[in-house]
């Protein structure tokens, strides 16, 4: 009990240690530093803005999700496309196979 009272007293002292404290003051020449920095620091261009947004986790993960989704769609979709393509290829060969013999070889 005594120990806990002691702790509370100690903690209260720490908790209230910033009472009546003054504000910290920055070093002089802040205005000069700001003016100099303002003059040299150029405003963010388009690429900086793009990289700023792309590095945000929410945007990055959303883009990643869409890339993965696009991949899934492409992978599941190409199976059907290949099937169709092979169909088309068969059609091509069946229709054009005779046309090979139509070409006359004119060289002796």
């Amino acid at each position, binding site marked *: 009990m005594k120990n806990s009272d002691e702790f509370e007293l100690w*903690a209260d002292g*720490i908790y209230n240690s*910033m009472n009546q*404290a003054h504000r*910290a003051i920055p070093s002089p020449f*802040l205005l000069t*530093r*700001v003016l100099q920095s*303002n003059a040299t*620091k150029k405003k963010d261009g388009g690429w900086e803005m793009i990289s700023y947004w792309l590095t945000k986790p929410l945007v990055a993960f959303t883009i990643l999700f869409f890339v993965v989704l696009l991949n899934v769609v492409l992978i599941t979709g190409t199976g059907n496309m290949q099937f169709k393509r092979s169909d088309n290829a068969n059609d091509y060969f069946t229709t054009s196979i005779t046309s090979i013999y139509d070409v006359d070889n004119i060289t002796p």
Partner: protein
Amino acid sequence: MNDKKIAPHDPENLSLEKMIDNWKDMVFNTALSIVQQTQDAEDITQEVFIQVYRQWETFRKESAVKTWIYRITVNKCLDHQQKKKRQKNGGLLKRFFGDHTTEEPVEFEHPGVLSERKEQSQLLFKALQKLPESQRIIFVLHKIEGLNQGEIADILGISRMAVESKMKRAKNNLTEKLKMMYEKF
């Protein structure tokens, strides 16, 4: 906390010099209490004033200037903390690949604290370092900057109830951290 009165000004025609003169102590003290490093706090102060100066014309005056500047300061501090975390993670990778130099946390001493309370305030800031960012910011704004719940709610864009509950959690967490320190003594 002694509050330096903000001089009455014409918001339409305010020079950078006047802006800095009015709010430099407020911005620096807030940044210093959050990041606990003088050089970093000065860099943040500088960045805050550049942003304030550049966005002054687009500032919609929906909130008080003081609230707006506090908001920019808090955001800059959060950005700074994120940057530090990223550097720390990079440091972990570096250590993994052979660089074994470890970074010791520096004991922070607030320059405005009364001399008889310096040791106590050091312990307070040490415990504050271990709080989650949002709780630390609310604690600093309330206890060190002396803002009320309504002002903090405006700055952070959250409800008063949220400020109140976070404040309670901050105090509970702080007591826990202090208990651990007390047991070590």
